[in-house]
C-alpha cells in the first residue's frame, strides 16, 4: 500500500551489520499491495533475515511468478537482480539460473495459486532436483491478484467472502514438499516475525532445496469468518513446534530473552548444517524430531486433521545433496566460462575424421 508507512519491525535503530550495511540497504521499492497484506510482513522478514546474516544483497537473485505474492521481490533487496517471470513457472527459471551460476543465493517467492495450482509440477520437480534455494510460498488460500477465487490450498469447507464453501480437497504444500524430498521444510505465519525471521535465515543457510510455507492472510479477500487463512483463525489454531536461532547470527537477534519468553520454555537442540553453521532449536513439541521425515509427515497429517496449523522447522536433512552435486559441475559458475571452453579447430578436425 502506497500511502502507509511500512510495518515497523523490532529493530528501528539503524544498526550496521558485518558488511557495514543497515537494514535500509536491504529494502526495496515501496509496496503497492493492500494495507495490512500478510505478504508485506514476509518481505520485511526477508529484509531482516538477509541483514542478520550479513548477506551481500546483490548476491541474492530474487525470482517469482505472477500474483500479489510474486510482486513482492520488487519490495525488498532493491540492489539485487529480480525476475518476475510467468505464472507458476518460477521454479524452472530459478533452476536454470542456479545451473548458470551456483554462487548466487536463490530466493524464490511464490503464491499458493502460483505454486499449488498452475505451478504444481514445477514446484515438485525443483524440490526433487535439490536446487539450492529458498522457496517461499506466501500462502493465503486465494488468488489475490485476480480477486479472491479459492486456490488449491483453500481448506475443504472453508468459506469465501460471499459465504460459498470450498468443496474440493486441499493441497498441503508442506506434506507434498516432504513427500518430494525437500531437504529443509518449514511452515510459519506472516504475523509471527519472531519465528519467521530465523526460519528464513536457517533456510538461506541450508545448502539444498529449502521450502517454507508461510501463511499470509489476504486482508482484502480472505480475512473473514469462515476462512481458515485469516489472521484470527491462524492465531487461534497455530501450534508452534519450535523456534530457532541461527547461531552465526545469534548476537544479532536481540534480545534473546524476549523471544524465548513468548513461548513456553522448551528444550534446546542444536542442529548442525552442512555448511558448518548450527541451528539452535527451542523445541516446544518435546517429542518431535526434525530429522525424521516419516514422523514429520504423520505428525502433520494428524494435527492437520485436528484443524491445527503446525509451524516451525518441520524437517531438515543435515546432509542435503544439491543439484550441482547430481550434475557433477565444476565449482566455477558456468556463466563465467568464456572462450577457453571452445575445443577449437584441432579438436574439430578429429571429430571430422571420426565421421568419414
Amino acid at each position, binding site marked *: 500500500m502506497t500511502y502507509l508507512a511500512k510495518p515497523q519491525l523490532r529493530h528501528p535503530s539503524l544498526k550496521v551489520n558485518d558488511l557495514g550495511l543497515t537494514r535500509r540497504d536491504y529494502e526495496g521499492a515501496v509496496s503497492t499491495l493492500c494495507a495490512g497484506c500478510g505478504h508485506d510482513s514476509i518481505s520485511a522478514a526477508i529484509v531482516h533475515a538477509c541483514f542478520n546474516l550479513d548477506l551481500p544483497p546483490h548476491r541474492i537473485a530474487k525470482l517469482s511468478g505472477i500474483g500479489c505474492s510474486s510482486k513482492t521481490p520488487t519490495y525488498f533487496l532493491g540492489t539485487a537482480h529480480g525476475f518476475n517471470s510467468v505464472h507458476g513457472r518460477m521454479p524452472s527459471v530459478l533452476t536454470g539460473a542456479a545451473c548458470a551460476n551456483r554462487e548466487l543465493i536463490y530466493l524464490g517467492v511464490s503464491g499458493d495459486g502460483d505454486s499449488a495450482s498452475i505451478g504444481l*509440477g514445477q514446484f515438485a520437480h525443483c524440490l526433487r532436483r535439490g536446487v539450492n534455494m529458498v522457496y517461499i510460498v506466501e500462502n493465503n488460500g486465494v488468488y489475490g491478484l485476480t480477486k479472491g477465487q479459492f486456490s488449491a490450498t483453500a481448506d475443504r469447507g472453508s468459506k469465501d467472502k460471499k459465504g460459498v464453501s470450498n468443496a474440493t480437497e486441499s493441497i498441503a504444500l508442506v506434506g507434498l514438499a516432504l513427500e518430494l524430498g525437500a531437504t529443509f521444510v518449514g511452515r510459519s505465519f506472516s504475523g509471527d516475525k519472531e519465528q519467521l525471521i530465523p526460519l528464513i535465515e536457517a533456510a538461506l543457510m541450508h545448502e539444498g532445496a529449502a521450502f517454507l510455507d508461510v501463511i499470509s492472510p489476504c486482508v482484502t479477500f480472505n480475512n473473514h469468518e469462515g476462512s481458515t487463512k485469516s489472521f484470527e483463525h491462524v492465531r487461534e489454531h497455530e501450534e508452534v513446534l519450535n523456534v530457532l536461532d541461527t547461531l552465526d547470527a545469534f548476537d544479532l537477534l536481540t534480545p534473546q530473552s524476549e523471544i524465548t519468553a513468548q513461548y513456553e520454555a522448551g528444550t534446546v537442540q542444536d542442529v548442525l548444517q552442512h555448511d558448518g553453521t548450527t541451528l539452535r532449536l527451542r523445541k516446544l513439541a518435546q517429542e518431535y524430531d526434525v530429522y525424521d521425515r516419516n514422523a514429520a509427515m504423520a505428525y502433520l497429517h494428524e494435527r492437520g486433521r485436528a484443524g491445527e496449523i503446525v509451524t516451525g522447522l518441520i524437517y531438515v536433512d543435515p546432509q542435503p545433496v544439491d543439484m550441482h552435486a547430481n550434475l557433477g559441475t565444476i565449482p566455477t559458475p558456468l556463466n563465467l566460462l568464456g572462450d577457453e571452453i571452445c575445443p577449437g579447430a584441432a*579438436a574439430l578436425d578429429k571429430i571430422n575424421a571420426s*565421421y568419414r
Partner: protein
Amino acid sequence: MPHALERTNDFVVKFANINGSGSASANRLFARTILRMGVPCTPRNIFPSNIQGLPTWYEVRLSDAGYLGARGGAEFVVALNPQSFDQDAASVDPGGYFFFDSSKYVAQSRLRNDVIALPMPLTEICNAQWSEARHRQIFRNVLYVGALAALFDMDLAEAEKLVEEDFRGKAKLIASNVAALRLGNQWARDHFLCPIGLQVKRSTEVGDRIFIDGNTASALGAVWGGATVCAWYPITPSTSIPEMFSRYASKLRVDLETGKNRFAVVQAEDELASIGMVIGAAWNGARTFTATSGPGISLMQEFLGLAYFAEIPAVIFNVQRAGPSTGMPTRTQQSDVLACAYASHGDTKHVLLFPEDPKECFDLGADAFDLADRLQTPVFVLLDLDMGMNERLCDPFTWDDARRYDRGKVVTYEELEAGKAFGRYLDVDGDGITYRTYPGTHPTKGSFFTRGTSRDRYAKYTEDGAAYVDNMERLLKKFETAKKYLPKPIRKDSPTPTRNAAVFYGSTSAAMWEAIDVLAEKGIFLDGLRVRAFPFQDEVVEFVREHDQVFLVEQNRDGQLRSLFLIEHGLSPSKLQSVVHYDGSPITARFIANAIAAKLAPVQVKS
C-alpha cells in the same frame, strides 16, 4: 519383361526391415562402404512411431553427380520383412532387382515378371552356421551386406575395414562379423551372376566430406558455440541433440583434474520447464539452449513471449516433424515456421535460422549463440526430421581459432565502477539493442528487475501507454537490426537469363538444386535463392522483386514461409506461388520439377 536396369553409381537401394531387429547397423555398413569407395550416397530411414515389430525402410541413394536429396523409386529392393513383402515387391522400378529371404517358400505369384528376383535363403544359411538365436538374427543382417557387395561389385575390403574400426579392440567380434560378410559375399558369387547391372565403381566424388546427421552436427555446434547449460525434454526427432551434446561435452568439457563438468544438462519435466530453465540460465549469463519439436514449441509459447518482451537470449533447436498435434511423429515436415516466427500471444516476432544440412547445423548452431546474445532474444534453429535424423554427406566442419564468442552488450563491474550510465531498456546505440548486466555484478549499481510486464527504459514497472509503445517500437527496430547479423541468403542464378525463380529453405535445398538442373534440361530456367534466416534481408526481397514468377517451395500444407513474405513485405501474392509437399516424406527433385513445370506450362503456352 523390360531390359534389366544398368546403372553405375546412380541408383537407389531400399531395405525393408522390421524395427528393433538390428538391421540398422548392417544397412549403415552398406552405405558407409559405398562412401569409402568414394561414391556419394544418401541414406534415409523411414521408421514407425513405435519401438519394435513394425515395418521400417532404409533407402540409399547413390549419386556420382552428388545429388543428396531424396529421389523416389528404387532400382533394388532388399525385402526382409514378411509383413511388407508384397508392398516391397510392388515398389521396385521396372527392370529392377528384388532381393529376398527365400528360406520360406514364396509363391511365384508374389513375384513380378518385370523385375529380377534374387532369392537368398538367409535364415537357412544362418541356422546352419550359428546355433545361438541372437547370432542368427544379427549375422543374417551382415550376411546380406556381404551378398550385396558381391552383386554390386563393391570392395568388400572397405566393409571389413569399417567392421574393424567399429569394433576396434574386440577381435572376436571383428572376426565373426568379417566371416559373416565373407560368407554372404561368397554365397552370392556362387549363386548369382555377379555383378548385376547396378554397380558401384570407385570414385573420388566424396572427397574429404564427412557423413553425419543434422542433430549430431547441431550438438557439436552447441559445444563449439560455447553452450554451457542445456535443458530439454525428450521428443522425437530432436532427442539426439541434447544426448549428443551430453556425450561430446562429457568428452571435451570436463575438468581434467577434478573430472567435473564445465556444462550442465538437465532433463526437465516437460517443455515448459525446459524453456523456463533456458530463460533462467540465459538471464543469469550462461549460453544455453533447448531442443524440441512441434508439440514442445506449442507448450513453450508463453515463455517465448516472455523472452521476446523481457529480451532474454535463448537458443531453440526445433527439429520439425509432421503436425498438427502429434501428427506423424516419425515423418518430416517444415510446418512450424509460423508457430515459431510469431510464437506467443500479443505482437511478437522471432529470429529464425534455416540450415540446409549438417554442415550448416553446425555453423548456424554455433552462430545462434552469438546471435542470441547479440540480439537478446530467442533464436530458433529450424531443422526437420529428414535433416536431423539422417546421416548426410557434407563438408567437414571448420572453426577459426581466432574467433571469439560475441556475448553482446553486457555491462561489467569495471564499467559500472567507472560510472558508465546504465538503463536496461535504454537504446544508447540507436540500434534497438540495449545493455544488460548479469545478476550479482555490482553491490550498488546496475541491478534491474526483469519482467514480462511493461516498463520504462530503466526497467521500472509502468502502465504508461507512451512508454509501452516506445518499447514496442524499439523492439521493431531491433528486429530490423537483426538482419545485418543474420546469415545472408544463398543465390544462384541460371546461366540462361530467366524471369522465373525459386525460393526455398532448409532440407528442401538438395532436392531443389537438383530440380533446377532437371528443369534446365527441359529448357525451364530458374534462378534460385535459399533463405537462411528470418527476418528476411533486403537481398531476399529484392530477389523476389526482380522476378516475374517466384515459386516458394516448402514442406508444409499452408505455405508458411510464403506467409512470412506476405506479412512482412509488400510483395505481390500472385507472384509468389506456393509449391508444397507435405505427406511426411522428404521432398524430391522429381516432385518439384513436375510441380513447377506444370505451373509454368500454361504460361509457356501463352508466350
